[in-house]
């Protein structure tokens, strides 16, 4: 078959990670490399103590070979995540987190825990955030109708998580409405 069954209804988390890995991230290289043309653009030159921005997948690869240090993005810090969590718990809406925060933070915490400060605290904050946001998105199911549902600031992995159920539920509501309106005409 042209597309495996598992890929038909939705995108998979590894695919989302692939997309997220195209984002740029700052590194401190430990090797020198000349400016190189890649399909996604030209990156480099790498000169050991100087910070450079390269795609995340490249940084992961170099990090695994111990050829660079990754500079954690600003949002991957205890203060920022704590403020997000506070906002999450006190405000009705979703807090402003980067769209692909879940993928990026997972990869960084797996690959480069030594480049991030207080990883344990960050891990538990991310987990709390995830739970708080998940609870909110489930409450959002209340407002689901056949027209439109606004979900601003929801992140890509969270959308992927609620997608099957929400899409199905909306489909059923549309069907019910269609059936009701045809019955009215009869």
């Amino acid at each position, binding site marked *: 078959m042209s597309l495996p069954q598992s890929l038909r209804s939705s995108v998979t988390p590894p695919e989302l990670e692939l997309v997220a890995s195209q984002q740029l991230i700052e590194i401190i290289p430990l090797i020198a490399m000349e400016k190189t043309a890649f399909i996604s653009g030209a990156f480099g030159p790498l000169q050991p103590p100087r910070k450079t921005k390269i795609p995340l*997948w490249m940084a992961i690869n170099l990090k695994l070979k111990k050829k660079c240090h990754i500079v954690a993005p600003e949002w991957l810090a205890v203060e920022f995540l704590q403020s997000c969590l506070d906002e999450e718990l006190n405000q009705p809406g979703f807090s402003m987190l980067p769209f692909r925060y879940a993928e990026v933070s997972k990869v960084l915490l797996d690959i480069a825990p030594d480049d991030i400060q207080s990883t344990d605290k960050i891990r538990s904050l991310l987990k709390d955030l995830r739970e708080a946001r998940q609870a909110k998105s489930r409450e959002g199911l209340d407002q689901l109708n056949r027209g439109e549902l606004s979900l601003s600031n929801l992140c890509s992995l969270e*959308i992927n998580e609620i997608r099957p159920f929400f899409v199905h539920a*909306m489909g059923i509501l549309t069907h019910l409405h269609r059936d009701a309106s045809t019955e009215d005409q009869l």
Partner: protein
Amino acid sequence: MSSSSASAMDWEAEYAAGVFEANTAALYRSSKSRKSRTSALALDSDNEDQDITMASASTSIRARTGPTAPILDLPQDDESPLSQLTRHWMNERHAPDILPAEEELLASLLDHIRRQSDAVQLLRGEPSASEEEHIRIMLVQMEVERVKFIVRSYVRTRLFKIEKFARFIMTDATIQTRITTAERVHASRHAHLTDHHFHNSVLQSLPETQSHLDDTPIFMPPMSSSFSSSWILTHLTVWLFFSFSFLLLFFLSLPVTKPDNSRAVFVHALRDCPPIRFQENLTLEMKRGHISLMPFSFIEQLLLRGDVELI
């Protein structure tokens, strides 16, 4: 030193050549890129040219997209071909319908992939490569594989939809404008094959009135009428016969499957969008960055214009 700087030159020139050629048609691909490679190698002598090439390349991008931008109304002028393809790939994965084919974009990316792999082959031949050089080659190769994955997944998603809607594509003229010639040929062959198969396996042995693949609803005997045993017996056989053929068709996927445009999708506004009208005088104006769940039919036009993306 000379070998490494020469190879650096090659990379730069490859990049510049890639930019210049981004829009050339697929037919001219091989001959043109060969020409540009020889010219790239000819540049070898002076290192000073590197930055100039890069600069002129980037201005040429702007010059190229400049005049077309207002007409096509592209979301971001500086969006790289790869991120464009990634966006189209995700859209295609989420949309219930087949979206317009991105032939030119795909051709230019495939061309770029081929040039990058050629360059890798060329550099691999060099015996005096340092460790840094190895890492560089490996990174380039890795990117090529990543891009190949996206290209493959994109094409396969389209193929899946085309096979699914093959019979519908053959009857609908508007959907045919959105697919490439090769895809249309595939759809017609697939539709023909399944027709043939259905006919040979089931339809030819059905009575005349039922022996064609139309969308007519399947007759269901009413359950509440007379209850004479003979009635039940005759109708039961008919019913069994129908349910058998129906099930068979069902398992082979229903004959004329249409895209369900009322299926809900998650949309992300790439810029401020004009208001969308819902049926009952309800409008929604999406600001840039807005995320929303709504039926595909409402945002189809915005998606085609590139105002929104599916996530």
